[in-house]
């Protein structure tokens, strides 16, 4: 037996709004259906049935008005009752609201610049060291101590110094440079001595002296032929020094 829509809705303890939401229909339409002002559109019947968990056939297509409730009365429009606008005068359905001029925003108070980060100061000092420039010099240049720089000024100064570094404006190297070849000079000396057949006098760690001509050498040793024809290989670790020797004399000249 078919029931009124409002009765089914109340049985399910649903509000009109909930039912409208579930069925995907306008609230006003649901109210009109419930009040019997209009018959339920057959296309909406299935939606309402699903929303109420009932068969379509259980819903009355034309609801009886709920007892004690009058039919829905149409609410008067806002402009009803107003005197009609004189002909030729445009009257907007809704008079434009008079816009009150918005008060001007207060000018933003400039925030005090943040002080330079300690890491920025450290980085600056490191760069100055690498550039060989003194802190006093750069402070005179910027007009204040590094510690009083703000974050932006410190950042700008860092960029400037880093650019100088990239451009190679570094201080003279204080670290000792290393020759390109490990034994380049000694190698040249020994090569020349070997080719010239020079007699060299060697001093060993225990102060013993030895004289001979170089017949071969490597990074760690020198092989010499002594005047009696014997060959001796000297480990460089045991050597102190050597120089050209006078013939017939053991050790340096």
């Amino acid at each position: 037996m078919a029931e009124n829509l409002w009765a089914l809705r109340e049985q399910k303890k649903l509000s009109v709004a909930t039912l409208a939401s579930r069925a995907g229909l306008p609230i006003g339409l649901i109210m009109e259906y419930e009040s019997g002002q209009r018959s339920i559109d057959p296309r909406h019947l299935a939606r309402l049935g699903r929303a109420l968990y009932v068969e379509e056939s259980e819903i009355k297509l034309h609801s009886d008005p709920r007892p004690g409730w009058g039919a829905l009365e149409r609410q008067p429009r806002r402009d009803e009752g107003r005197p009609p606008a004189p002909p030729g005068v445009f009257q907007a359905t809704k008079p434009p609201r008079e816009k009150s001029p918005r008060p001007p925003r207060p000018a933003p108070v400039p925030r005090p610049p943040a002080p330079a980060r300690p890491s920025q100061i450290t980085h600056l000092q490191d760069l100055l060291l690498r550039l060989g420039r003194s802190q006093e010099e750069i402070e005179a240049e910027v007009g204040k101590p590094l510690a009083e720089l703000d974050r932006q000024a410190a950042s700008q100064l860092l960029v400037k110094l880093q650019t100088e570094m990239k451009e190679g404006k570094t201080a003279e190297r204080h670290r000792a440079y290393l020759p390109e070849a490990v034994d380049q000079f000694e190698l040249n000396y020994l090569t020349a001595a070997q080719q010239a057949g020079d007699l060299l006098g060697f001093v060993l760690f225990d102060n013993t002296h030895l004289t001979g001509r170089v017949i071969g050498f490597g990074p760690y040793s020198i092989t010499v032929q002594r005047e009696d024809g014997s060959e001796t290989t000297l480990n460089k670790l045991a050597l102190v020094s050597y120089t050209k020797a006078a013939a017939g004399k053991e050790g340096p000249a």
Partner: protein
Amino acid sequence: MSLSDTLRLLRAKRGGITPLDIEAATALPKGIYRQMEQRYRAVGDDDSIRILADFFGVPFEDLRWRLDWPRKALSRALVAAMANGSAITLDLWNGQQVPGVVRWWDLGAVGLETPDGQLLVIQRHAVERWSPRAAEDIAQ
């Protein structure tokens, strides 16, 4: 002779045991011995030197003073002497003290022109101390 050269020599005297053997036999942190021996700058502290002095059976002081005379400091002194054209005096391992002007130097030896005009080739590892030291080493 710098600490690194001395350690290399002491290791050679012990039959050439490896740095790993020394680390395994002592409480030295991993890698520190290799750095002490191979680095040209000063590496190590009193604790590590004491451990090594015990291991090699040599007096602590014999090793400790060498930490302040690393090979890199000798390079700096040689560079400064060459740049200034000034004389330098090298104290050698065998007790000799040799003054002269640096004509060349490399990683293995120094070519020193002695006052008699001879070019004496001195092995760097035989240099114990020198004078003058480079400005940055005096500052330290």
